[in-house]
């Protein structure tokens, strides 16, 4: 199964070429990028049980790092006294670093709370960054940054080639799938999952729960930042829209759609989400429903509600015939046992 998936991912450009749909490779790149972002969210949401409704914030911070460098690079000016780098070997790690720092700071504040507070406060802080980016007149304000200098470079690779860029997105995704696999099986990952299942018990065992949660939150933020940096390069455009709260909602939907707390769930979810977004309008048009073509969300909204109400395990969970872990119910049941 995993081998098949890998083979498909690697040969995808040639398959698409062969069926004459080569242009779809940019969609495939977007799927890889969002899959990476959704996987990072799954680490804290699915495994750690932290319902972060502001994950797009770190995604956006990563994108803005690339965008701001690109703007200064194009103008030939410096940022904070240094010449802006134009190699992905530098810009993307910086995206990760700065998004990680942002996640560490905001995460430390958010993790003072839990439950519904945590949802609201992560959302509110993401909105704070959204308004911060909107107010940055220097960097386009509402309109964002168009990267006039084009994509960042990377060694001998031709990043303007959509096929080569696809592999540039696939690489980090595969790497993170591997890291995620190792991470959730490590001691750290076990503690993280125990946090979701019964935090008080873990704390009683003498484990510094917040320390683990904050580490996971920071890792997730950094990886989301990497995805943001890639998306900025992919679109050659950055805007406050990347930080918009609906983006956080989209990422969350991808995680749930694929299957909460399942390693490859977010990948499947991101693919399903973006394919639906791309082809649902086309589908409605071919069905002779032009009104729904433009307003496909009116179907997507109720669809989402139904998935939440009736198919908790998501696509992958349902296929695998196993259901995603239920958070509070599980906790309540645990607490009820004397």
């Amino acid at each position, binding site marked *: 199964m995993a081998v098949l998936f890998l083979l498909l991912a690697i040969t995808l450009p040639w398959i698409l070429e062969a069926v004459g749909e080569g242009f779809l490779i940019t969609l495939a790149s977007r799927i890889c990028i969002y899959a990476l972002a959704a996987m990072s969210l799954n680490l804290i949401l699915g495994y750690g049980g932290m319902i972060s409704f502001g994950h797009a914030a770190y995604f956006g911070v990563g994108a803005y790092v690339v965008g701001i460098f690109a703007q200064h690079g194009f103008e030939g000016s410096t940022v904070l006294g240094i010449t802006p780098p134009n190699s992905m070997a530098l810009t993307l790690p910086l995206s990760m670093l700065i998004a990680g720092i942002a996640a560490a700071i905001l995460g430390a504040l958010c993790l003072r709370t839990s439950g519904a*507070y945590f949802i609201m406060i992560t959302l509110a802080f993401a909105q704070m960054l959204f*308004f911060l980016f909107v*107010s940055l007149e220097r960097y386009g304000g509402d309109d964002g940054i168009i990267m006039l200098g084009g994509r960042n470079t990377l060694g001998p690779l031709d990043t303007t080639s959509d096929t080569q860029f696809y592999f540039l997105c696939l690489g980090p995704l595969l790497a993170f799938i591997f890291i995620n696999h190792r991470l959730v099986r490590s001691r750290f990952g076990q503690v993280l999952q125990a946090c979701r299942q019964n935090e008080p018990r873990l704390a009683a065992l003498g484990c510094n729960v917040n320390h683990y949660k904050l580490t996971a939150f920071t890792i997730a933020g950094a990886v989301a930042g990497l995805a943001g940096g890639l998306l900025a390069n992919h679109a050659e455009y950055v805007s406050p829209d990347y930080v918009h709260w609906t983006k956080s*909602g989209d990422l*969350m939907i991808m995680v749930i759609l694929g299957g909460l707390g399942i390693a490859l769930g977010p990948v499947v979810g991101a693919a399903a989400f973006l394919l639906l977004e791309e082809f649902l309008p086309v589908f409605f048009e071919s069905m002779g429903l032009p009104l729904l073509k433009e307003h496909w969300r009116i179907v997507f*909204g109720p669809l989402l509600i139904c998935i939440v109400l009736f198919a*908790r395990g998501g696509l992958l969970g349902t296929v695998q015939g196993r259901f995603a872990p239920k958070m509070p119910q599980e906790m309540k049941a645990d607490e009820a046992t004397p």
Partner: protein
Amino acid sequence: MTLFLEQILNGLQLGVFLFLIAAGLTLIFGIMGVINLAHGSLFMVGAYAAAVTTAYTGSFWLGLLAALVAAAITGMVMEIVVMRRLYHRDHLDQVLATFGLILFANEATTMAFGRTPLFMDVPGFLNGSVEIIPGVIYPVYRLVILAVGALVALALFLIIAKTRAGMLIRAGSTNRDMVAVLGLDIALMFTLLFGLGAVFAGLAGAMAAPLVSVEVGMGEQQLILAFVVVVIGGIGSVKGALVGALLVGLVDTLGRAFLPDLLRLFFDSATADGVGAGLSSMSIYILMALILVLRPAGLFPMAGQRH
């Protein structure tokens, strides 16, 4: 000085809108334990109903009535069709399902009224300004909003403190199961309470309609501000919602009005404007962060709160 007073009144007025939205949100959360993202959509429904009805009939009162009725019906239908199934689910399910509700509500509104914002005039009999103290002229309509806000807050406190319904609300927020065991129709109570929260949001929408452009997505901006209010005030506390709303309204308005000037004392004007714009749009979130550091459960935490 006159500018300062004017800005304080503006801040209080934003506080009134936020209170009306946050009060419903916090009551619903406190009693039913459900987090409702689609609460902002009720604000939007109220604004649209008021704007459209007033445009057709020419009567502000009919518009207001339509807003309250439309919001109440939307709220109760929402409760019966979707929310009812979510009470025993975890917060994640509630967030996702109500996110789906927002997508549906926004798209349905776009289909019905298009993407062009609607505009509504301030009702004729409230159109005008008065001199509240010598030298300070303020629009009557905005003063009326302040008065309505104060009245609603007072009425809500009286209802909760003095009436049988309020007693049930208080009892429900402390121990929902016990109230059910004592023979109360909890399902009906929840539907009505949801309707009440919806009416508040609809009222805010109708009053805001003449002041802002009525457009799709207007509810979500208010909703996120209302979240900040609820986090500051403490989930489930109406008093917290009132204090939080006024605090957020004042900090946001005064920050936008005076922060750039204040910074100009320390920096050159270009830097001050840039930093001021950024800081003032972030001011309420910084306030929220500060309060959280000092009091993680908000200013007025609910007794026996479940996290």
